[in-house]
């Protein structure tokens, strides 16, 4: 898999539609390195001087080359491809090699695999050229020179390689520039010409590496590659070509970041329950949005929905220049095998998604569940908790009757003449250790309207009768 124009893709990934954009490098001289299709239509070509490019397209947006972002994008591509096969290897600066021989059956053949891979890459916003061949080196050469070509391992497949331009063997650094000049000087401009050169003659000119490279591409000698390992934490950054302060473009860009996060989680067989999104501004410190989901999961749609709720509530202090996503402490969660008759976990996921949605819009303190606590005082016999968790049982039940409704603060009663005391008194005297000690006699009383109230008489100063609950 080859990412063409990688310096340019770093910037255009975050946009639905890139305008006239060109990437500039400053060494060896200030020239245009890559240009977007809109810029090319104006006449800007890679290799032009910057002054010339601006003369041709006055509305051109220029960005400096960002090498770290290019490496990060390659890692994103690796994560995305890692969802399909675990055998992955990077070929810097802009290629990734995926070993698929063992998973072809799962995806229904090479054509099915390439289609699904193309869909996944499009969802990430990456423009990738694919090619398939029996050896990794041949596959990378084909991706660079003949994208879309797929070669099966039939006898005689190496004939295809003979037609490729000779500059390809210089990738990887094993063949030096002098060797390349030598080969061009003797008139070998296709790869096939190297095969006919005598080995000892090449050795005398210190160009043995050339034939070694060709042998590896043909599969005659093995070509071991280091496997790619996904990093333990995930941090990705997306540069926006122009400062943005509307919600929709931010959500669109974040969708790419979340897709990358989901791919990294799949490769690591993990799930997370919190992540941080940083909105970078030009002159101010970054704005942090912390997204917390109830249960660890990898669903990017859920994260996107929660981010939408957070952004709707947030006031942006300044336009956003770049987005950063950070996630650490993943939890190991192997994938569930598919059930033939529907997912039994779908009901539970729907329930948790509802809680996340409510918390994101109403705030965390407006949504809660109840749990029992050990305590004689009515206020301490319960506490709020995250809904749905089942706490350990073993709390003793109260001896007397308890009402279904409890008032937040006991309401003083003017007089108790209209009330008929039905049961009681139940003396509750407790809490001297934290300063909220109470000494109360609780009664169940019937009010004048036949409702049942839970009232108490406070025995400390100043005393008096209070209503504390209703038997709903």
């Amino acid at each position, binding site marked *: 898999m080859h990412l063409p124009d990688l310096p340019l893709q770093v910037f255009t990934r975050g946009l639905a539609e890139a305008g006239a954009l060109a990437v500039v490098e400053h060494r060896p001289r200030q020239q245009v390195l890559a240009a977007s299709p809109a810029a090319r239509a104006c006449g800007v070509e890679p290799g032009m001087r910057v002054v010339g490019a601006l003369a041709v397209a006055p509305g051109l947006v220029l960005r400096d080359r960002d090498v770290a972002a290019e490496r990060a994008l390659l890692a994103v591509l690796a994560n995305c491809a890692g969802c399909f096969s675990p055998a992955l290897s990077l070929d810097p600066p802009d290629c990734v090699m995926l070993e698929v021989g063992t998973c072809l059956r799962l995806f229904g053949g090479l054509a099915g695999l390439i289609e699904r891979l193309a869909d996944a890459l499009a969802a990430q916003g990456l423009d990738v050229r694919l090619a398939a061949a029996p050896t990794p080196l041949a596959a990378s050469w084909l991706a660079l020179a003949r994208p879309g070509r797929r070669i099966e391992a039939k006898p005689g497949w190496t004939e295809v390689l003979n037609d490729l331009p000779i500059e390809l063997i210089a990738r990887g650094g094993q063949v030096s520039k002098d060797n390349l000049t030598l080969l061009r000087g003797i008139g070998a401009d296709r790869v096939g010409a190297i095969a006919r050169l005598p080995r000892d003659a090449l050795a005398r000119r210190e160009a043995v590496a050339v034939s070694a490279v060709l042998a590896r591409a043909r599969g005659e000698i093995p070509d071991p590659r280091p496997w790619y390992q996904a990093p333990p934490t995930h941090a990705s950054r997306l540069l926006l070509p122009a400062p943005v302060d509307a919600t929709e473009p931010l959500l669109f860009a974040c969708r790419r970041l979340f897709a990358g996060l989901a791919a990294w989680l799949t490769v690591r067989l993990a799930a997370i329950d919190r992540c941080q999104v940083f909105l970078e501004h030009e002159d101010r410190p970054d704005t942090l949005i912390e997204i917390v989901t109830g249960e660890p999961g990898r669903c990017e749609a859920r994260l996107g929905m929660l981010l939408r709720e957070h952004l709707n509530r947030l006031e942006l202090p300044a336009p956003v220049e770049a987005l950063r996503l950070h996630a650490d402490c993943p939890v190991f969660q192997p994938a569930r095998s598919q059930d033939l008759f529907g997912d039994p976990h779908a*009901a*539970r996921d*729907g*329930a948790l*998604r*509802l*809680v996340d*949605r*409510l918390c994101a*819009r*109403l705030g965390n303190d*407006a*949504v*809660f*569940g*109840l*749990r*029992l606590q050990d305590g004689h005082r*009515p206020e301490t*016999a*319960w506490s*709020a908790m995250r*809904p*749905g*968790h*089942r*706490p350990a049982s073993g709390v003793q*039940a*109260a001896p007397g*009757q*308890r*009402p*279904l*409704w*409890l*008032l*937040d603060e006991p309401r003083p009663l003017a007089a108790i003449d209209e009330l008929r005391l*039905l*049961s009681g008194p139940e003396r509750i005297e407790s809490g001297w250790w934290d300063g909220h000690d109470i000494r109360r006699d609780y009664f*169940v009383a*019937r*009010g004048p*309207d*036949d*409702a*049942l*109230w839970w009232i108490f008489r406070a025995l400390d100063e100043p005393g008096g009768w209070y209503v504390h*609950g*209703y*038997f*709903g």
Partner: protein
Amino acid sequence: MSARATTLPAELLASGLIWQADRLASPAWPGWPTGFPVLDAELPGGGWPRDAIIELISDRPGIGELQLMLPMLRSSPPARWAAWVAPPFLPYAPALAASGFDLGRLLLIRPHDHARSIWATRQALNSGACHAVALWSRNIDASALRRLQLAAEASATPLFLYRPNAAARSPSPAALRLQLLARPDGLGVVILKRKGPVTHTLLRLALPSRLRRSPAHDALDSLAPARPAAAGIHPGPR
């Protein structure tokens, strides 16, 4: 019209193609059992409707309005919430646990304003993850009621809507409206609206955990009807 409805052949009546005005509607699904046989007998489908708003009108707390809902909530399947939106007071956990309710399924939502309560109720209904939703609202307008009705129908989740007494006079799209009255030995229920014939009987429901002076049994207590019944049509319990 003759008072004797038996002139029609029995198989025609039993086929369900003819509905007579003194019969309760039979909905597509049976209702959730309310836990009170006296009330089940008066409701179409033999229980709470599965996809409608159930209005419970009462003016004061403490008469047993929560206990009316609890038997149905106790029987909810696992991994389904019982969502309570904007309750007027705090539901007390020890009492709920003592009545057999599973606290791990309770989802309490206390938004800051009324519009958010309506939004939260709609989200809970639309998610399909709730066994039942209860909303306490002092003044709710007709368009919000209509939206909640559509949400309840779409996801087949019952919504228990607690409203004050003043709401009994205004029309509502709810399929079932019950007026709750305080009674010394239980809860009195008058059915204001149902899919069936009009009835004015006061149903007396025995609440298990309330103190009673004398052991009471379920009894039907007829109030005088507002106007004399038209000749030939007698509302009868089914």
